[in-house]
């Protein structure tokens, strides 16, 4: 059974369409990454799946329950770690977890031991009785992850779980996420800005922009769409000759240099350089998810920026005419 199955989910606000028809299926036990620029609709999509926001149209089954018809049943089966910290500053770590456990209807006898277990998992046992307002950003995050997990949800939503964390804390969070998946077969939906994070954690990645999923595949397959390796060349490149090579996927001019996407640089680099003409400088690297992201979402970001600029100029123009 699929952990999540959405059917043409749409959310429209007064001025913008945040999610413009998303249909996807996420199998149990998968770590699913949602990537997209700011305002792409990631958080809105997660908010609808976790029944915090009502869809304008369409529906979804989460853990087999309909988000429109049985929101409380959906909630009992999911855990959420929000983008902004939402642990209660005025309570201690233990009290935060206790409140959560009671709200999620856990049997009272189980709560105490489970809290100890979760605090140990996120390495906060020694701070259990401290007020959360004395915690650092990383500690809050870890407490929040413990809270999202304490009621053993089948599905865990993580909205930018490592935002603002230092590299060591980030690695620790990643380790927790991997352990979860392996130990409990928890389905995890993850949004992130960090490509490295998505690459190392996610089984599949959806790139979302303007409320639509524009690409959905495994990280490897997505990278293959861009090419395996990127060669940056400075100099008087013979573009026509390079394009004619069978292993070259694309050639783009980027500032003062050329960005050439090729297959298997180990076998083909020499041939490329031979055909390239007079070359001053060469740099070779593997394709990363950053390149994938820029290719699929980047162009549209530039378009958006242009539109906005036009909007402002139009408004100024209108103001001038009314003033006269």
């Amino acid at each position, binding site marked *: 059974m699929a952990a999540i199955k959405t059917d043409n989910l749409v959310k429209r606000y007064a001025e913008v369409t945040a999610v413009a028809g998303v249909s996807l299926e996420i199998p149990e036990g998968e770590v699913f990454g949602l990537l997209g620029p700011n305002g792409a609709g990631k958080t809105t999509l997660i908010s609808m799946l976790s029944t915090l926001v009502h869809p304008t149209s369409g529906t979804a089954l989460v853990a087999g329950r309909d988000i429109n018809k049985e929101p409380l049943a959906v909630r009992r089966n999911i855990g959420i770690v929000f983008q902004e910290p939402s642990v209660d500053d005025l309570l201690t770590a233990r009290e935060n977890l206790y409140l959560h456990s009671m*709200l999620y209807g856990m049997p009272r006898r189980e709560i105490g031991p489970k809290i100890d277990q979760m605090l140990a998992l996120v390495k906060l046992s020694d701070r259990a009785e401290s007020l959360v307002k004395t915690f650092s950003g990383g500690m809050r995050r870890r407490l929040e992850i413990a809270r999202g997990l304490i009621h053993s949800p089948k599905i865990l939503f993580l909205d930018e779980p490592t935002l603002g964390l230092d590299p060591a804390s980030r690695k620790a969070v990643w380790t927790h996420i991997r352990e979860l998946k392996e130990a409990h077969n928890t389905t995890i939906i993850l949004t992130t800005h960090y490509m490295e994070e998505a690459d190392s954690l996610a089984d599949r990645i959806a790139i979302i922009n303007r409320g639509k999923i524009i690409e959905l595949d495994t990280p490897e397959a997505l990278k293959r769409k861009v090419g395996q390796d990127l060669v940056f060349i400075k100099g008087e490149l013979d573009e026509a000759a390079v394009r004619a090579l069978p292993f070259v996927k694309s050639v783009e001019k980027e500032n003062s240099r050329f960005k050439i996407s090729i297959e298997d640089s180990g076998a083909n680099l020499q041939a490329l350089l031979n055909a390239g003409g007079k070359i001053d400088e060469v740099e070779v690297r593997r394709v990363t998810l950053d390149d994938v992201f820029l290719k699929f979402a980047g162009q549209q970001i530039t378009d958006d920026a242009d539109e906005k600029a036009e909007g402002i100029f139009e408004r100024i123009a209108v103001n001038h005419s009314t003033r006269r």
Partner: protein
Amino acid sequence: MINFNAVYALLLREAKIFLREKERIISILISPLLFLFVMGKGMAEGQSPVPGFTYQQYIFPGIMAMVILFTSITYGLYIIWDKRLDFLKEVLAAPISRATLFFGKSLGGMLGALIETLLLLVIGAFFILPQNPLQVLLCLLAAFPISYMITNMGLTIGARMKSMEGFGLVMSFLTWPLFFFSGALFDLAGAAPYIKVISLFDPVTYCVDLFRIIMLGKGYFTLWTDLGAIALFCLITTALGVAAFGKLQQEK
């Protein structure tokens, strides 16, 4: 529909937070004590409408209502902070009905108001108007529905407000008028006709009157009018509050 374990947990949270902020407990009592000890004593020559009591003793029941009014409204409006601090998000995402959340919150408000009432009652019993144990008990019992009703008003407004900037407006345009028109500081029987008419629609009027009946033995309305009016306002504010909480959505 209502999950009592969750209500208990929410109430426990409010109790812990309230008891941890001792400064707040004291600061809430400051203005009522000013009214009671400065105005009450300053107008020592002022006539008490009820024979056998001083003016200070006469306004004491009104000041009891004032403490509940200010504590409860402020508490209710505080959910704007919850919204800001994103604590509310966690609760809104929990598998509990909005009615459960609402009752957890309004019981929390009642608890705070009861503690303040008890403090003021003790101070007053020592310095102003001695009370027998039955009167103390009845006052505390009366404080239950009164604080419930006023907390509900605060929560209803707080749930609809977007930012803390509206706080001052609510205090100026709602809380203070509710207090002054309630007749907490004077006898409605001798007031100007327009005040009498407005006070009929002021829920606090009946609260002040109920406390006067308990503490002075004489009120403006009958006991049953007061209890009936308070019960009615409790029902209305519950309906409004649950509806307002139902509309609470996650803020962007």
